[in-house]
């Protein structure tokens, strides 16, 4: 009797081994993988700050003085659109002059220059899949520069690649309009300062 039971058990194990062994093997591999130490790059604020400083210097060396000061003072850069019919064709912009506002790591916003009517949000990213420092995200100023280069270099291609949304999907339209108002004030102040610098003062004139 005992012999019969033992023989049955051996046969059953032999038959089930095809099912059991791979599962045991898989479990063992998972256990080893969990125990394996994977080097992880932790977020380092100092490294990110140094990266941002380098990125700001690069941005400054590429854009003109006005754009750099705009970014420094307001946190965004305006780039004029060059397509005759606007980014979405004449039906949307009517061929009127338009521009883009470039924010770091936010959608690019297109708007009509005269009325400040927002035309759309263009969501675009520059992901580095190699994640060299544990992150695929460029420093803020590098993100702005990448958008600036892609827009001024090949506006049509960048806009075609972007996911276009109506204004207000990610950015508060009121906030964008406030930024455009701040930009207008900033430009007026800048022109006034430039005019004052170029005209001699009353003391100089009377001397």
């Amino acid at each position, binding site marked *: 009797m005992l012999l019969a039971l033992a023989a049955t058990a051996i046969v059953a194990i032999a038959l089930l081994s095809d099912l059991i062994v791979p599962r045991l093997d898989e479990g063992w591999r998972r256990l080893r993988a969990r125990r394996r130490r994977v080097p992880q790059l932790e977020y380092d604020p100092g490294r990110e700050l140094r990266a941002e400083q*380098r*990125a700001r210097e690069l941005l400054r060396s590429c854009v*003109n003085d006005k754009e750099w000061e705009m970014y420094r003072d307001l946190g965004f850069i305006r780039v004029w659109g060059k397509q005759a019919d606007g980014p979405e064709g004449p039906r949307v912009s009517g061929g009127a002059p338009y521009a883009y506002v470039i924010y770091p790591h936010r959608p690019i916003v297109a708007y009509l220059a005269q009325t400040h009517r927002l035309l759309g949000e263009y*969501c675009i*990213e520059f992901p*580095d899949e190699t994640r*060299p420092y544990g992150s695929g995200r460029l420093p803020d100023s590098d993100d702005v*520069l990448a958008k600036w280069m892609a827009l001024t270099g090949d506006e049509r291609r960048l806009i075609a690649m*972007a*996911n276009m949304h109506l204004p207000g999907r990610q950015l508060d339209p009121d906030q964008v309009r406030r930024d455009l108002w701040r930009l207008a004030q900033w430009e007026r102040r800048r022109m006034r300062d430039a005019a004052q610098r170029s005209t001699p003062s009353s003391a100089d004139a009377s001397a």
Partner: protein
Amino acid sequence: MKPGYGEVLIAEGDIELSEDEERLIREFRRQLDSGLWAAVPLADAQGRRESRMVRSFEDIPRDAERVIFFPRAAGGR
């Protein structure tokens, strides 16, 4: 441009020296093959700045001071 680092110098050389030129061409192709975009910042006489996207080494103006490589754009959310 690199996440967590910013600007990284990849290669430099004098385009008029054939040895340097070959090295620069090799590096340029390597960067494009790895999926990066390349742009040359330009300035005109009026002080306007813009960039030119380049897809081959021949597209780069001979007097260009630098070529900037950056990750390829993708539609974001």
